[in-house]
């Protein structure tokens, strides 16, 4: 029984409730936002440390003290703990970034309570060991994200939100249907118990059919080909702090659930299911990166790159060797850091120039070389330049692909890496390198006057931390690698998880 497993869920709920109670004071809400996400970060660090140093590598808390197959358990294995830590990190970074960047209107309409609620849902989804409970957490984070997405109520937000809400609801209900069918087949909802019971199901074909239902539901959430259309239609509409939070966390919840289900539960017909994952991964990479090449709006380019990077995570799961899985988790970690950071930098560019359109901004390298450096660290890392973090992730995946002799996906992964570099260089050349276009100079000057240096410094603080992290993840790879390879070993051996959950309470 490890109470720290429940903390990452409880802390955001407590601070979210407090911010609702103190909704009249924006100052109090801001403090609660920073302190709450900071506490969450500490709790997540403790959780990862305790999970990793535990002999089984799995921590459990049975809620209400009901033993495992009957009650709901929260389970923290290394994968779950790493994901929780990343969620907390991005939550903290965005909370600090929000201080100067979120307008007081948004604050008055409940930005901070919703942010806490979103984090609670994300952490809950990462830590739950029960599939219906997973559905509930997904709904918690979805409702929070719906409200965050339309905060402000502009026309573009409404149009984006309708697509986002419809497709995500469809995916949730597919998840619910799949959960119902799973329960009908096995009579249990506990993931560890399902591992045992699914293997006993007579008609294994039926298990594969249900696994496909999960695959579609999670692929919509993860924005994988061909179900990604809601993402580029909506992610560029809300304020940029919200976009960064979404970009870092929401699709990764879908990916995490795929990692969980297709390593723990549905490995009975890997020739079929994981082959599909491989194809989805390849197409997702290509469509995402080509979509991004078309645009000259920073947030849209980045939105399409979210899609493209999801493909790599699918590829890792499909290859399923220890190296590939460790590479996949590494890639998720790296992607959460760099992608959120690029969105945050996009926001700073907006505050300095008054536009997200690359054609209308420029000259930032001369005026703000530090911002340029932080952008370069994140962007080149995303594109996979050695020795930054993206390179290591891609190297691990490509090497796993070569070892599995899947030459097609290796070629796609390398080519897409090159095109990613193209997009990143496009942003670099347009926003930082070229001179500020004269016809928009007046607006740029107006925006730059409106933003104080102090606000900029506060916004650049989390950006700098994330940029340094993007570099450190690549340069100081070894300790991270050891944690991740342990996570991959756990994923490949469901018995560890099953024994820990079902045997832990005896």
């Amino acid at each position, binding site marked *: 029984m490890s109470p720290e497993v429940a903390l990452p869920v409880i802390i955001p709920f407590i601070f979210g409730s407090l911010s609702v109670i103190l909704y009249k004071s924006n100052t109090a809400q801001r403090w609660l936002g920073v302190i709450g996400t900071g506490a969450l970060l500490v709790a997540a660090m403790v959780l990862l440390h305790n999970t990793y140093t535990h002999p089984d590598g799995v921590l459990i808390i049975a809620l209400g003290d009901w033993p495992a197959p009957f009650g709901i358990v929260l389970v923290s294995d290394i994968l779950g703990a790493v994901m929780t830590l990343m969620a907390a990190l991005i939550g903290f970074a965005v909370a600090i970034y929000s201080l100067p960047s979120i307008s007081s209107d948004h604050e008055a309409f409940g930005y901070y309570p919703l942010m806490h609620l979103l984090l609670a849902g994300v952490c809950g989804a990462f830590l739950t060991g029960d599939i219906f409970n997973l559905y509930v957490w997904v709904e918690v984070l979805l409702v929070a994200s719906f409200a965050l997405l339309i905060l402000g109520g502009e026309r573009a937000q409404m149009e984006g*939100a*309708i697509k986002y*809400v419809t497709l995500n609801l469809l995916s949730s209900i597919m998840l*619910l249907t799949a959960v119902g069918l799973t329960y009908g087949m096995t009579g249990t909802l506990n993931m560890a118990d399902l591992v045992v019971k699914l293997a006993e199901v007579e008609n294994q074909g039926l298990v594969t059919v249900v696994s496909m239902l999960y695959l579609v539901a999670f692929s919509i959430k993860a924005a994988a080909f061909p179900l990604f259309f809601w993402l580029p239609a909506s992610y560029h509409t809300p304020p940029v702090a919200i976009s960064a939070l979404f970009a870092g966390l929401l699709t990764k919840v879908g990916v995490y659930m795929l990692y969980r289900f297709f390593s723990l539960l549905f490995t009975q017909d890997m020739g079929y299911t994981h082959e599909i994952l491989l194809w989805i991964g390849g197409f997702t990479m290509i469509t995402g990166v080509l979509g991004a090449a078309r645009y000259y709006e920073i947030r849209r380019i980045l939105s399409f790159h979210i899609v493209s990077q999801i493909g790599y995570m699918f590829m890792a799961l499909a290859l399923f060797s220890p190296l590939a899985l460790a590479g996949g988790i590494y890639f998720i970690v790296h992607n959460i850091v760099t992608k959120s950071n690029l969105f945050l930098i996009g926001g700073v560019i907006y505050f300095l120039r008054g536009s997200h359109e690359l054609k209308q901004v420029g000259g930032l390298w001369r005026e703000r070389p530090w911002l340029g450096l932080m952008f370069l660290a994140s962007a080149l890392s995303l594109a996979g330049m050695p020795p930054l973090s993206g390179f290591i992730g891609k190297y691990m995946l490509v090497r796993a692909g070569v070892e599995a002799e899947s030459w097609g996906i290796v070629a796609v992964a390398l080519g897409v890496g090159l095109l990613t570099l193209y997009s990143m260089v496009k942003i670099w050349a347009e926003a930082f390198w070229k001179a500020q276009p004269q016809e928009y100079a007046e607006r740029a000057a107006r925006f730059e006057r409106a933003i104080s240096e102090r606000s900029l410094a506060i916004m650049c603080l989390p950006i700098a931390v994330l940029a340094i992290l993007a570099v450190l993840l690549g340069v100081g790879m070894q300790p991270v690698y050891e944690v991740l390879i342990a996570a991959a070993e756990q994923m490949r051996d469901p018995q560890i998880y099953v024994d820990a959950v079902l045997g832990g309470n005896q």
Partner: protein
Amino acid sequence: MEPLMAFVVGGLFAASIYMMLRRSLVKLVIGLILLSNAANLLIFTVSGMQRGLPPLIAPGDTLPAGGWADPLPQALVLTAIVIGFGVLAFAVVLIHRAYVVVKEDDLEKMRSTDT
């Protein structure tokens, strides 16, 4: 009873997909309502339908005697109904706001964020 319910659930899913593929916003929401009800009925059905057999255990036994209705799916459906209701309330408010802001009921004309 189960075969009949299977057809009802299938019909509801079909109807909801049809409604969601229409261009009107209102029909989209009707589709979502039907969809969540279809999923709820499905959970109810797949776990086996038993009438008048409460899962009560006689003193001294460890299992209920004979057949019994599984209470867990009913609890699941109850939770799902509550969640579905909340989300649908949001969706209805959203389409109303969208209609007020965009002044359009036609999804075909809400494409400015796509391209």
